[in-house]
């Protein structure tokens, strides 16, 4: 392991990777990356590399889970054994089970599940490399994968974290800030509906700091939102060009 840095914010107010407090890491999004899936997306945010794949609406398995008035949304967040410094056992940990649940609950408000009663929509998320903020990056990618699968959505869901490094509220925490920082507030947003679909926190924040952090995370989400739309368009522009050739 690397030596622990003494300070997360330097004298100029910059962070370990040279970012300003309210600056995002570089984000790269791509849609339609898994040919077999009905919808898929890939995200790079800092050193995070995450794939999301959607299958469905399809037959419910096991059958007794079927709902008569809407589709069942299922979600599995999983980290590859090689995605972190020390090998992670491939068996789902309690952390992964909880994150799978909160990701599902962050996506569900955006999906018109009532259009597909007695079916199931599966969302699979594989973290290939983790660099802090994987649940947020996963949500951003998973929502794109749902859209790519042609499932009607009320809005895209986009997520970003804010937190406290030393005494500064910062946006989009990377690994070191996540581990050594004083608080982490992941937020998922449906920007057009102004709805927060995921909100968690750990650490210690005063109410004013919390309000600042939530607002900063919302601003971060709003910066990633147009990139999501661009990535979605880019796939179809690509298809159109291919067809014209």
């Amino acid at each position, binding site marked *: 392991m690397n030596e622990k840095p003494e300070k997360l914010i330097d004298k100029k107010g910059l962070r370990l990777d040279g970012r300003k407090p309210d600056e995002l890491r570089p984000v790269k999004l791509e849609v339609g990356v898994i040919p077999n899936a009905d919808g898929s997306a890939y995200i790079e945010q800092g050193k995070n590399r995450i794939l999301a794949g959607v299958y469905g609406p399809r037959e419910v398995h096991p059958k007794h889970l079927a*709902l008569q008035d809407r589709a069942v949304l299922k979600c599995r967040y999983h980290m590859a054994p090689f995605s972190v410094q020390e090998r992670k056992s491939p068996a789902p940990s309690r952390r992964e089970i909880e994150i799978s649940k909160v990701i599902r609950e962050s996506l569900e408000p955006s999906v018109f599940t009532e259009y597909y009663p007695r079916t199931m929509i599966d969302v699979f998320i594989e973290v290939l490399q983790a660099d802090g903020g994987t649940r947020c990056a996963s949500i951003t990618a998973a929502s794109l994968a749902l859209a790519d699968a042609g499932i009607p959505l009320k809005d895209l869901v986009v997520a970003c974290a804010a937190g406290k490094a030393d005494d500064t509220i910062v946006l989009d925490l990377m690994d070191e800030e996540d581990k050594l920082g004083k608080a982490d507030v992941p937020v998922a947003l449906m920007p057009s509906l102004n709805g927060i679909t995921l909100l968690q926190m750990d650490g210690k924040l005063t109410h004013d700091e919390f309000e600042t952090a939530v607002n900063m995370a919302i601003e971060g989400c709003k910066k990633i939102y147009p990139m999501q739309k661009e990535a979605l368009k880019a796939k179809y522009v690509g298809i159109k060009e291919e067809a014209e050739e």
Partner: protein
Amino acid sequence: MASVVTRIKQKQIVELLEKGKRLDGRELTDYRELKIDQGIIERAEGSARVRLGKTEIVVGTKVEMGEPFSDTPNEGVLTVNAELVPLASPKFEAGPPDENSIELARIVDRGIRESKVIDTEKLCIEKGKKVFVVFVDVYVLNHDGNLIDASALAAVAALLNTKMSNYEVEDGEVKLKSGYTQLPIKQHPITVTCAKIGEKLVVDPGLEEEQVMDARLSMAIDDDGDICAIQKGGAGYFTPEQVIEVSKLAKDKAKEIRKKLDW
């Protein structure tokens, strides 16, 4: 699962809320009656029972010797587990923990860990080798809504009541001595849950309110009135304004409960 009964109930609950009332006659920001009994299980190192209306939780703690984590060699270890035992609700089933019990355990864990309830450095016996491990087991005995707040309260109440054995180190051997010391406690977080039903926010949702709610938001508030842990649940959303409203409600309610319990 939606059923005919809950559809009718849902309408009733929403209509009442529009008038600022709730099914059981509470105000929107009222908690149900809260009762805490400590030290109810003699075999456990610490224990507490919380009754919140008809919701009943027992938490027992065990303190054993074990190894510290490699990244915190001089700190004791905290482990939280939650059991939704099948006798507590027709919806609970026996078997390995499902996502609901794992989420409950992790919310309780986060509230205790992030607000630093236990002075874990004082649980170190021999740096890097031996520390005390505190097991907190949450047992849900009757589910009538808001398991999160009741479990979080019960866990802190049980920890306040927890003793660990005295020991001495002789030639690298740890020997237990007679007598006990109180577990070193630094904070007393209180978790407050609000449910969003329609556009209304209600504190301490009962079971029927939970069945019709859009979403819930839980916040753990420490002795200083700061926020230490948050969890949103449910398949709905909150507006940013509602989030701030919940944080203010949580602060006020936590203060009120803290005063009542003298924590």
